[in-house]
């Protein structure tokens, strides 16, 4: 097996990598958030005097101290960085206590008293939709955050033409990202007037935007510096950015460096979660297994704030039929405000919920029709040139749905193992089952937002190269991927490339590092910059290589002439550049190809390209205890082009584990809006003893929409585990599970 390489591996394996909480500055102050023990209440008064009087406390900051705007939100500015008028969920922050040391700050936080008038609270999204329901945001006029729809064909005609109709309701849970590093931020007021931020967040540019708005400063007055980050998974967007913004406010007000480091309990209490969904799904099929019609109603609990709910639920809507062609589709989606913890981006972003539904529905349908579920999938899945349910024709990349499905089925010997499934039969205590699920996924942001990315190549006189890309290193290995892509493009050894510590002040805003877009967009920008860079070098060195500039090629750390035998070392070529007063410097930008969306009909080309994946799992269910043991997992994904094999496998394995937790053990429990499992003992992510043996099958159909040919993998691996497990549990126990997490009763294996 090829050895994995990462530019930051040495620092991380020796403990030298400095994460936000590892940094310290002279005269640094420490701050902690203050919560109020309410879930819905009008704030009457916040008493800070006792806290401020405590020895060692420097200041207690509330909404009164904000020079800029307190209102924040990526879509709707409905979130108060410091709660001012109301408490809307249990994680609202009313104040930030700043003290000389963290212990004192924690002590003082207990002394801040919030006087508030409790309001009736809503914790059920369907109750929130009732006309007489109390409003969470009065100015919004209703508890509906957003709606989406798809109207394709004629739904009644579709069901009329169906021989078999099935309908089921599904429900999913709140899920915590559980990044190992809780939120942290360190803000430093610099002598030049800039507030410098080191923080654990996956979106430096929006962190800068929110901070500048809160502080009433310009974007150029705030600099967010890349800092090693202990995981994000979509969860270090809104909350993490806000933690940075609050910290920056303290630093700005006090003129000193300020650090905030979250306890796990604060992190779970305040940070947003994956949306719980309630889905009613009706499917009509012909007697030979062709899906004729789908009617689908989706209710997403957005919790107290909008966050990215409209985008998350949009993806659910666009992908509501899974990778299947359906002529008649009627889908209504609604995102709803409640007084629960708010919900937003998490790896998968609205697809894990829908895949849990769709990939069980096709199996339920296959049973009714009397054909194998794999055959039914093959019959209905998208093919080269197919139209999706939104009318997008899949003809600009290789549609490899069948290829990934076949890869999994062959590798795990699926058909043979199907025969061994227990279906609850009473032979022994361990019931065996196998299951699979597949999906297609629109890449990157799609019609959610502007999709472009920048890269800068800056070669030095000695031939070393500095590279920077507007994508953030979340821990996934983005920097390493870009170094490897640039080394491939320039035909040079990766050792000569150093990734420059990223900064929002040195490269244009390239958007969020989310949506499995990092590798695709980042390598795209690298290729564009490399093209520009090579063009500049070729023009200078072509005469000495006795060829035209277009004929120069880059290989083995040398520049070679076209047909001629002439070549020049990369180092020497760089020196020649400088001696000719030409900078070996290039800026590259990659624009995502165009997308379209008609919100009224739910029609258009929502994503510029798609990825295809299939995963299967073997498991046993203990009849006495109901305990599930995961045995073997196999995943096949078309990634376009492999950039860093070890890290690619890591994304696949990590997605299998996280998706398995989603299926079996992870659930944020709320008691009237208050989270009762605030640490990792009772919020249960998978441990080493829980994971199956895993195998990754990588398929490479280079994507012409991606300049480097690579596509994303982070989310696809996580979004199909729950239905694969549900299907396997069914084949073990003979029972279908329509709710997540799957809870199997002891004794009867059901």
């Amino acid at each position: 097996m090829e050895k994995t390489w990462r530019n930051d591996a040495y620092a991380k394996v020796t403990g030298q990598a400095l994460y936000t909480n590892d940094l310290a500055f002279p005269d640094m102050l420490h701050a902690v958030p203050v919560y109020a023990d309410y879930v819905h209440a009008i704030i009457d008064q916040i008493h800070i005097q006792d806290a401020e009087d405590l020895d060692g406390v420097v200041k207690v900051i509330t909404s009164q101290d904000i020079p800029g705007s307190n209102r924040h939100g990526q879509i709707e500015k409905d979130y108060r960085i410091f709660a001012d008028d109301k408490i809307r969920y249990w994680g609202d922050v009313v104040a930030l206590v700043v003290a000389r040391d963290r212990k004192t700050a924690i002590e003082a936080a207990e002394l801040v008293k919030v006087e508030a008038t409790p309001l009736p609270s809503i914790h059920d999204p369907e109750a929130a939709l009732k006309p007489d329901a109390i409003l969470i945001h009065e100015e919004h006029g209703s508890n509906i955050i957003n709606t989406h729809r798809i109207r394709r064909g004629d739904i009644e005609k579709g069901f009329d033409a169906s021989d078999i109709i099935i309908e089921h309701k599904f429900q999913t849970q709140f899920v915590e990202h559980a990044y190992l590093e809780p939120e942290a931020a360190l803000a430093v007021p610099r002598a030049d007037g800039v507030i410098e931020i080191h923080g654990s967040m996956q979106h430096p540019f929006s962190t800068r935007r929110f901070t500048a708005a809160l502080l009433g400063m310009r974007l150029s007055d705030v600099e967010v510096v890349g800092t090693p980050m202990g995981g994000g998974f979509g969860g270090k967007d809104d909350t993490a950015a806000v933690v940075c913004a609050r910290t920056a406010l303290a630093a700005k007000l006090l003129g000193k460096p300020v650090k905030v480091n979250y306890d796990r309990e604060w992190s779970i209490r305040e940070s947003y979660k994956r949306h719980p969904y309630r889905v009613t799904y009706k499917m009509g099929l012909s007697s030979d297994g062709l899906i004729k019609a789908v009617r689908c109603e989706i209710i997403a609990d957005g919790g107290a704030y909008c966050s990215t709910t409209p985008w998350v639920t949009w993806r659910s809507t666009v992908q509501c039929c899974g990778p299947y062609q359906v002529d008649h589709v009627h889908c209504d989606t609604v995102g709803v405000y409640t007084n629960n913890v708010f919900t937003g981006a998490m790896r998968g972003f609205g697809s894990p919920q829908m895949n849990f539904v769709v990939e069980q529905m096709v199996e339920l349908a296959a049973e009714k029709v009397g054909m194998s579920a794999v055959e039914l999938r093959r019959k209905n899945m998208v093919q080269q040139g197919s139209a999706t349910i939104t009318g997008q024709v899949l003809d600009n990349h290789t549609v490899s749905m069948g290829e990934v499905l076949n890869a999994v089925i062959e590798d795990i010997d699926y058909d043979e193992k199907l025969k061994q499934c227990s279906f609850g039969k009473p032979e022994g205590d361990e019931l065996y089952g196998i299951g699979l699920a597949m999906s297609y996924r629109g890449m990157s942001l799609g019609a959610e937002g502007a999709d472009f990315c920048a890269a800068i190549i800056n070669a030095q006189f000695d031939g070393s190269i500095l590279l920077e890309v507007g994508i953030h290193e979340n821990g996934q290995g983005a920097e390493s991927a870009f170094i490897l892509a640039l080394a491939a493009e320039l035909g040079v050894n990766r050792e000569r490339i150093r990734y420059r510590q990223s900064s929002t002040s040195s490269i244009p805003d390239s958007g969020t590092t989310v949506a499995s877009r990092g590798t695709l967009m980042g390598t795209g920008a690298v290729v564009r910059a490399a093209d520009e860079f090579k063009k500049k070098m070729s023009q200078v060195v072509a005469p000495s290589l006795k060829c035209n500039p277009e004929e120069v090629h880059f290989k083995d750390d040398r520049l070679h002439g076209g047909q001629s035998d002439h070549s020049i070392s990369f180092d020497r070529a760089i020196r020649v550049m400088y001696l000719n007063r030409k900078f070996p410097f290039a800026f590259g930008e990659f624009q995502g190809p165009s997308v379209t969306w008609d919100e009224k009909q739910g029609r258009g080309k929502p994503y510029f390209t798609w990825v295809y994946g299939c995963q299967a799992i073997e498991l046993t269910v203990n009849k006495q205890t109901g305990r599930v043991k995961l045995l073997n997992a196999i995943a096949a994904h078309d990634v376009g082009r492999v950039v860093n094999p070890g890290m690619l496998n890591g994304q696949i394995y990590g997605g299998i584990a996280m998706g398995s937790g989603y299926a079996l053990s992870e659930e944020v429990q709320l008691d009237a809006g208050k989270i009762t499992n605030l640490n990792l003992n009772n919020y249960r992510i998978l441990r080493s003893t829980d994971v199956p043996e895993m195998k990754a099958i990588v398929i490479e159909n280079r994507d012409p929409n991606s300049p480097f040919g690579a596509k994303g993998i982070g989310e696809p691996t996580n979004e199909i585990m729950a239905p694969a497990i549900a299907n396997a549990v069914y084949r073990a126990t003979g029972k279908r599970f329509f709710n997540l997490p799957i809870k199997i009763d002891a004794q009867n294996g059901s």
Partner: protein
Amino acid sequence: MGADKKMIIQINRNDIAIPERSTGMNLLTFLREELRLTGVKIGCGKGFCGSCTILVDHKPAKACQKTVVDIAGSSVLTIEGMANPDGTLHPLQQAFIDAGAIQCGYCTPGMVLTAHGYLMRNPNPTREQIKRAMAPNLCRCTGYQQIFEAIETAAEHYHL
């Protein structure tokens, strides 16, 4: 212990005299803030995640669950003491890199030390034994598979 006496702990092969005022400190806080050994990470603060794992007399221990006085007279290894003094990596560390067992890296110090402590006791582990040995340490990125592979690869270096 007399007021003028100092407690001695060996940390990363150096004898460290602990000032009296620090003996009651939480060990994790002491290592991070007094000795600046920030490779000892904080993930949960309650002993559930293993991010703060160190070796005390060659056995894995969660620093967040101990006070300084608990380890009086002991020998402690943190991730900072794992590589050779010249900076070259211990084979287990190299195996973590080569296997792709590192993503965000936040669990890595604890993972390496738990594995190191285990391999010193059992240099011929089965996959199942490795899984059980690593159960105290959580990882959210890797799905553990490449961590198991790294430990298996490195095991031969622990053979006497």
